[in-house]
């Protein structure tokens, strides 16, 4: 797979570390165990487009928010995770 890093351009997936689904967002610590459990263990695991976190470990060290189709491995979008919600 080739991932287009917003900093470095198209790079082989072996340069990246795959963390997993990006859908759960971290709750505040006082939101309760149920919310924390959902964040740590809850996954949608869709057959289709999935938001994921990848880390460009071998280059710019950016955490990327990507959307990838789990059926075709096609990358639909790649953005810097730090720019989400800004």
């Amino acid at each position, binding site marked *: 797979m080739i991932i287009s890093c917003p900093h470095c351009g198209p790079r082989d997936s072996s340069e990246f570390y795959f963390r997993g689904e990006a859908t759960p967002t971290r709750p505040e610590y006082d939101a309760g*165990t149920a919310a924390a459990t959902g964040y740590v263990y809850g996954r949608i695991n869709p057959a289709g487009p999935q938001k994921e976190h990848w880390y460009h470990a071998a280059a710019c060290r950016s955490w990327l928010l990507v959307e990838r189709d789990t059926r075709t491995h096609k990358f639909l979008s790649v953005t810097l995770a730090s720019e989400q919600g800004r």
Partner: protein
Amino acid sequence: MTRLPAGGLIDRGKPIAFRFNGRTLTGFSGDTLASALIAHDVKIVGRSFKYHRARGILTDGIDEPNALVTLGSGARAEPNCRAPSVELFDGLEAYSQNCWPSPNFDLMAINGLLSRIFVAGFYYKTFMWPAALWEKLYEPLIRRAAGLGRLSGDPDPDTYDRSHAFTDLLVVGSGPAGLSAALCAARGGLRVLLIENDSRVGGRLLSQRYKVDGELGTAWADAALKELVANERVTILTRTSLFGAYDDKSFAAVERVSDHLPGAAIGRPRQRYWKIVAAQAIFATGATERPIAFGGNDRPGVMMASAIQTYINRYAVAPGKRAAIFTVCDTGYEVAADLAAAGVDVAAVIDARRQPGRSLAFAPAISGEIVRTFGKSLTAIEVRRYDGGVERIAVDLLGMAGGWNPNIGFASHLGNRPDWNESLQAFRQEKLSDGMMFAGAADGALTLTDALASGEAAAARVMSPASSMPPIGTSAQASPHVVRAIGQKVFVDFQHDVTVEDILLADREGYRSVEHLKRYTTLGMATDQGKAGQVLGHAVLAQHRGVEMAAVGTIAARPPHTPVAIGALAGMHRGEHLKPVRLTPTHCWAAENGASFVNAGLWKRAQWFTRAGDADWLASAVREAKAVRSAVGICDVSTLGKIEVEGPDAALLLDRLYANMMSTLPVGKCRYGLMLREDGFVFDDGTVARLDESRYVITTTTVNAVAVMRHVDFALQVIWPDLRAHACSVTESWAQIAVAGPQSRALLQDLLPDIDLSNETFPFMGAVAGTWDGIPMRLFRLSFSGELAYEIAVPTNHGDALVRTLARLGQTYGCTPYGLEALGILRIEKGHVAGGDLNGQVTAHDLGLGRMLSRKKDFIGRAMAERPMLVDPGRQALVGLKPVDPTQRLSAGSHLFRSGAAHVAGESQGHVTSVAYSGVFDQWIALGVLAHGPQRIGEVIVAASPMRGTRIEVEVCNPVFFDAAGERLRA
């Protein structure tokens, strides 16, 4: 000799000597092993997988299921090579496989009589009882009797290379379609990479006598090659097999660089692994002729008709003296004509279609079927005419022209299954991944004219997606042909000895999906991956069940398309080059001082320093640990991860990363820190030093250096992107040396006369940045050993000078270098946890560090760490352990049992995580985790290791064995 007097693409001026089963034979330059064997009338090349039936050469290429040989001997022996795709070279040695004592007389042929036992699924149903005999008796017996070639078992003596290629257009296959596509794209200015499995370009043109543009096909191919070679944007790789198509238009291929050269090629790799990225790819991979299912269709002398054509036209060898062709398509007649033109007597063409295609001047065309064959190698065939007559015809060569299957397996590497095409009567690839298309015979364009046009059309589409070139239609064919068996085995998968009867049996037993059929009968699971016979097998199933082929479908081909040597995939990455090596800044000094090194991740760390008089490694380690406790020792700790964190919110970031509070840490001080994972378990530990108001340097364990950096980046970029802080790994930038022991202050004061190191000005957990000898220096008063101790850091390139200076100045104080083993002894004596204790399943409470979890702030892991199960006092928690009999030796990994309990998994109450021989106590001591551990101090329990057969009584004790009050480190 059956070499034809003239013709062929061989160089009769260059004879080549080779050996087959010990016999010296000769061929010509341009021959393959198969053509050279045919020239010597070798009919039986090997024995089959299960039944040990005599087998000859069936095909002319990579799809060969029968003529498998072992090439070379000793460490270079390579089993299961396909004779038709082995180029002949001087000194080639080849051996038949799966036969003893020889392919002509094989004692294992008795398996043929036991064929009732070897039916489909025999592994699953025979020999199931008694189970104990399976491993000891049945399996070894079956493996010896049924099988292919054997590996030498020796290390691979050859070298392998690796290359990368990037191109606008990848063309796979250099037959008429591939060449016309490459020519068209190259003329259009594209960068083209043309890959050909064969040693020369031309594909089927090399096997046939067709003309292109008025010249012979081979001459046209040569001219095309010349034009392509002259174009600097074109790269041509011959002897190169594409074996996989992967995501995002990447492909893998192996180039055979020196396999065809005599002897072990000095200074050249044997093979080169290519990783290719291509914007577009045209697969002009041709088509594979399919066999016909009839009784005795595996007999040596029965060949694919297309292979006969290749051997006659390309290699000028006649595989027989009197031939017949069994055909379901017009190509059978062409082969008959080629045979006749070469002077081979053609006895008949048997056409299984109700309306025979043609009539011939030189031989009768019979409308009918072959039902049986005769002879050890072929002597006769029995033909049943559709008009009722049965006749026996004496022939020693029979060609099967069963139609063509487009070679489309690469499409299913990317998950695209083919569709059955009614007019083509074959699977064709309709659904394609972006950037991939098929052309020529691979796309169903089976005639030469169509193939040339198809290649051009594909290239035109690459250059202009809206190209107006009309799509090339598919050719019409007859369906795969199956003759009802009468008494003789009918093979569909020749390599795995799968017969029509096996498929019918699988169907009776419910294995009707082609994927189930494949696994139950092993149809298509041999080294040829069913290239020759798989579709025929599926046709048998469809016809038996009376359903359409489209309803049966076919299996998904998976990489590799052809077998690949593991050495080619490994390339240079073997032995000491398997992984990069990281050396500490003091490596040379350590080596000079007798260090033995141990791998710690990629690092080489000094494990102990051998001195004269040390009985063994343990004596060295104990001596070093004692030196630290009594005088001073020095140890390289540069491998610990070091991360600098800077910015107005650096303190806030660290508060969130660590379970304990860091924002309250004063400038010039260090603090021990504990990081949790988000699930509440311990992730890593280390120290945090505050260099100034907004700048910290933190350390991680060696093993987690990378993971912690990633974790910090995740916190900064994903969880709290608004924090004004930056973090950067400086592990490689600083050499860090631990100076530990009662004399450490005196030694460092000599090294750093300008800094007051007295306990009052630089107490335990102090941190200071300064200079040593004019270069930047950081000094931390940290202790892992429990002694008065420091860690001093200088830029990496000064690490060697620093350690040598410390060693020189330290001579006065009895300074001793110590390694990882002594470090382990010292930290276990102090109850400090490390690698084996932090196994990802322990909580802060388990380590007795529960009170470090701050209740005043959010931090990663806080919510989950408060789960009831994680704070249950019954959890296995850290304790010290010492043998009741001080002469006994403990081993890490031993399980802990209540005294008197059975030593079974269900009774295990914990395990030993670290052991060391303590010189201070003169006995083995250990750390471990034990249920209710801290409440059981003083209890005698059992540490048992069923693996080692040991069982030792141990006393549970405080994990801090030495100086529990911590007076020494504050001295």
